[in-house]
């Protein structure tokens, strides 16, 4: 191993690949996303996969409606978004709740540990209570090795029980955004 290769860092770089493997095993066919740097590697994997349809959204609430449509059609979708996007979803989550649609949101957190941009803090700091107020079950991930397991649990809960679930991937785990 080269000196600059830190084993802890190598492990943490693998979490998007581990999540992707879970999406494949769990037969996820549609991935809707508004791009985020934290999700870049996972988005790239989804875009390169022949059985997953990647759907770039103009705003995250589109994804809530998209996932309702795929559920009506009997297929599974997962949404990728940044914490700020959770705020954009609030009213559309009425659709999920009124009809008890399955929903899985994988949220990369901003506005918490090591945040450079204070404008990310107001939404980032209320993601968890907002999701709880909308009956979305929250799994918070602080360590890279827990990410895949949390995604698997969220998928099983959502599609097994027709419920909404979100996995919050902490900013500390993802790594701070580099500002230069």
């Amino acid at each position, binding site marked *: 191993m080269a000196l600059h290769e830190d084993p802890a860092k190598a492990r943490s770089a693998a979490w998007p690949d581990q999540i992707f493997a879970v999406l494949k095993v769990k037969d996820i*066919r*549609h991935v809707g996303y508004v791009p985020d740097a934290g999700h870049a590697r996972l988005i790239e994997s989804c875009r390169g996969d022949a059985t997953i*349809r990647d*759907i*770039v*959204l*103009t*705003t995250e*609430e*589109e*994804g*809530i*409606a*998209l*996932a*309702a*449509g*795929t*559920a*009506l*059609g*009997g*297929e599974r*979708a997962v949404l990728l978004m940044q914490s700020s996007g959770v705020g954009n979803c609030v*009213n*559309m989550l*009425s*659709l999920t709740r*009124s*009809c*008890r*649609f399955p929903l899985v949101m994988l949220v990369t957190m901003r506005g918490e540990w090591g945040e450079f941009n204070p404008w990310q803090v107001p939404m980032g700091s209320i993601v968890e209570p907002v999701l709880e107020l909308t009956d979305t079950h929250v799994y918070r991930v602080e360590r890279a090795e827990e990410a895949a397991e949390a995604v698997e649990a969220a998928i099983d809960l959502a599609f097994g029980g027709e419920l909404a679930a979100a996995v919050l991937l902490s900013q500390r785990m993802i790594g701070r955004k580099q500002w230069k």
Partner: protein
Amino acid sequence: MEVSLERRGAVATLLSERPDDLFVVPGLGSTTYDVASLGDDERNFYLWGAMGGAAMIGLGLALARPHLRILVLTGDGEMLMGLGSLATIGVQQPKNLAVVVFDNGVYGETGMQDSAARAHVNLAGVACACGIGDVHNATDEPALRRLAAKLKTFDRTLFARVAIRADEPPRVLPTRDGVELKLRFRRAVMAAGA
């Protein structure tokens, strides 16, 4: 001066001799009542909320069930709230999705206030600009009948704006139970076997 169509007559024309494989997502408000006025059908997923979401529900459904035809029938106000979804649909281009907007230029449900579509925003132009190739602007009966025929045969993403009068026919209210609407719609999808 464009001719404006009567909405209940227009929906009846569009859905006359409805093919078995045509599934309909009516948008929140008057278009839900319009579709319900033709008689209830398990292949209708009526919206009682989710304003701005009708076209995206249709997109998800179209992608998940490529062998069914999906018609989103919504109003100008509902479409304007989800205008970005036309960009999203323009990227995906599902062959089996049609979005038809009943455009009367007003918010009928809330007291006929003007929408941005009244003399200012050209919804068919927006759809064109988003890369949707099969775009129609139906302002009279012959154009409406051509559109109705097209809804049975279209083979690429379709968008149509239908000019309707700003009136308010008697409401026809389908069930408001979202879980029931979901379950019966899914049964109909499974029964369609596609």
